[in-house]
């Protein structure tokens, strides 16, 4: 394997991990509150579309972000209405959201812009572009550390840095605030929360809203930071990978980040290996690398890496017992 360019693989690892981190943290909030959220994928896609449209219309990436978050939160509320208020099946509601997202974004995109479901390409000023740290250009050619600074630390857009801030922030909210304590409690035993005089419904809604906000960041990142516009189905299964990362990390914030980085790395490595041949084996199909996150998650679920215990009340709508 000649030219194994570690720095460039790590750089693209970070770029590919960001939507996973936002989305998996979104799932962390809902699932720790006892609401399964298979609709992460759909929320990400909806917000990617909304962000691209708003950024194109207004020329402002920040208004794009706002639109992405708003739409994603609205979709979360639909999921909440179906599965919390009406006690519907959380998986079915989530899958419905994914189908709706895949179809509706493409149809609206075609109806509004007539570019095959795409949104028009965005100017640089309507996107979140790379932030170059001081002296990055000068240090680029000064050995490994310099390249590391220039390509890994510096040179990402603002959302990337926010994603890495969202990890300790989520940890702090979940483990150091009243809201977090109650949220974790409601995912384990909603009866305990109800008898403590706290509304299970309101609490779970707030958790899904948190998830909506985080998914809004993820979708926005896809369409106006990583790319310059919305493309049909651009989330490409990242919502499911994020769910896998969430399970892999046993529903804990810092491991969630590490799992997302691992899955991002696998993705980056797959891209790197494309068209390259491994000595003695030949060219390895890229699908093998793409399948790895799922394979790893299955291995985990089969109990090889320890028991992943989901929140006990997950997936079960709360009904007062009689």
């Amino acid at each position, binding site marked *: 394997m000649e030219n194994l360019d570690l720095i460039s693989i790590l750089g693209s690892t970070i770029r590919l991990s960001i939507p996973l981190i936002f989305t998996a943290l979104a799932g962390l909030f809902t699932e720790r509150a006892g609401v399964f959220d298979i609709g992460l994928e759909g929320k990400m896609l909806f917000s990617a579309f909304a962000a691209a449209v708003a950024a194109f219309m207004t020329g402002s990436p920040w208004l794009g972000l706002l639109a992405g978050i708003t739409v994603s939160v609205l979709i979360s509320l639909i999921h909440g209405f179906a599965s919390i208020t009406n006690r519907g099946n959380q998986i079915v509601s989530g899958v419905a959201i994914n189908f709706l997202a895949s179809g509706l974004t493409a149809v609206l995109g075609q109806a509004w812009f007539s570019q095959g479901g795409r949104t028009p390409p965005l100017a640089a000023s309507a996107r979140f572009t790379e932030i170059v740290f001081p002296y990055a250009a000068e240090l680029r050619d000064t050995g490994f550390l310099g390249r590391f600074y220039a390509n890994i630390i510096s040179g990402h857009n603002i959302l990337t840095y926010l994603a890495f801030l969202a990890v300790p922030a989520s940890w702090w909210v979940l483990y*150091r*605030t*009243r*809201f*977090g*304590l*109650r949220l*974790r*409690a409601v995912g*384990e*035993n909603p*009866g*305990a*929360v*109800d*008898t*403590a*005089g*706290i509304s299970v419904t309101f609490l779970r809604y707030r958790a899904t809203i948190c998830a909506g906000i985080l998914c809004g960041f993820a979708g926005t990142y896809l369409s106006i930071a990583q790319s310059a516009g919305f493309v049909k189905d651009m989330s490409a299964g990242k919502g499911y990978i994020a769910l896998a990362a969430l399970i892999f990390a046993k529903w804990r914030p810092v491991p969630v980040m590490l799992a997302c980085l691992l899955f991002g790395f696998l993705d980056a490595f797959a891209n790197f290996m494309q068209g390259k041949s491994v000595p003695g084996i030949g060219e390895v199909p890229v699908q093998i690398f793409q399948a790895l996150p799922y394979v790893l998650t299955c291995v985990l679920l089969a109990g090889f890496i320890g028991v992943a215990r989901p929140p*006990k009340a997950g997936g079960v709508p709360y009904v*007062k017992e*009689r």
Partner: protein
Amino acid sequence: MSPTPTAAPAIELIGIDKKFGAVHANKNINLTVAKGSIHGIIGENGAGKSTLMSILYGFYHADAGSIRINGQNTVIQDSQAAISAGIGMVHQHFMLVENFSVLENVILGVEGGALLGRGVSDARSALKRLEADYGLEVDPDAIIEELPVGLQQRVEILKALYRGAEILILDEPTGVLTPAEADHLFKILGVLRDQGKTIVLITHKLREIMAITDTVSVMRRGEMVATRRTTETTVEELAELMVGRRVLLRVEKGPAAPSDVVLSVRNLTVKDGRGVTMVDNVSFDVRAGEVVGIAGVAGNGQSELLEAITGIRKPASGEILIHGKPVTGFDSARLRALGLGHIPEDRHHMGLVLGFEESENSVLGYHRDSRYGRGPLLDLDACREDAKAKIEKYDIRPPNCRLKTANFSGGNQQKIVVAREIERDPALLVVGQPTRGVDIGAIEFIHRRLIAMRDAGKAVLLVSVELDEIRSLSDRILVMFAGRVVGEKTPDTGEQTLGLMMAGIAA
């Protein structure tokens, strides 16, 4: 400690009425509980005790009626309102978050601010004070799921006290406790009362009522049928009030006539799913014509022993013989064919499919029998005729074999299982917790059936955590502790002796 007569009653319920659809759970209930007293509410399952207390705790809303707390009219819309009115409740199924610490459970809902930091340290010292005041020691940093149930219950009580409860409602608090733990709980309740707290104890166990209450109210089918001073009533009177007719509390039976050995267990060792040894080198025989009772606190290996004998779990080592023939490792279908009947410990988990019709559950496990169909097809008419006969014979109510099993009461569901297993006329009947969550009338019925099996020359192995049940049905009692049989006793052995053996203290 007699209640002070001058003070306003702690609780007054006036004309409480509640319907769930067609079920009239509480009919015009009036109840007065004096301050600083222990008041028992007794009744069969489904009599409306828990509903009434849930209304008091704001879990449900009454359709009619009013509530006065300490003489003040009080509207209790939700649990938060109940808590601020000074009412605390210890639920039958603990309302604890199992992977939280004791401290986190105690502060849940009263965290003392949006951030946890300071509230938590305040709570820690408040908890220390409560523990000292009432003798309720528990490590605040212990994780709930690692605590024994007795301590988990203590956490529930601490939760209520931490919220400033003056009135404490306990719903069936001793169901999960050992006799020693129950005694300790009663001591705590006595201390609480002496400090001026008012305690409402919901139970269906008459012994507890007699042991610690000052006054007792009896509920039957949604109505409050009587209130008595405990000193002025008897167990027999209360039982009759509960059921509405005279009840025999102790099964009448003649001496056993044991003959050939039917079940032999030899050096049996069973491990659970985690690989922990739950049954440790156990050996015993059960003969035709005798009831062998296995006493023990829940979780000491009885469940795994039953599972091994009935073919649900493969033993790690040892041997099981039926009629002298080795059957170790046989699955339940083969064991049933050899004449084993099994009334499982948990009818919802193993005995019944609640979504099925009664007639379907009535043949489940024997549905391959030629009586109920041919080849892959079921003869539904035959199943239903068979179910009807059982309903008649076992007085299963309502007598409708097409009704979904979930719609029967606990006692009637249990009768469906008992009828199915006994009517196969097995040579060996293995019974786990036959009367758990079953009302007194049905208990009497099931007990008589089990004795009738014995008298018909069948071998009966009975596992129960109810010591009374073990003592009144068994001809021999084996006590299990930590996976071992720690001794064999006769049924006239004192409760205290057995209780100590169950706690692993004396042999």
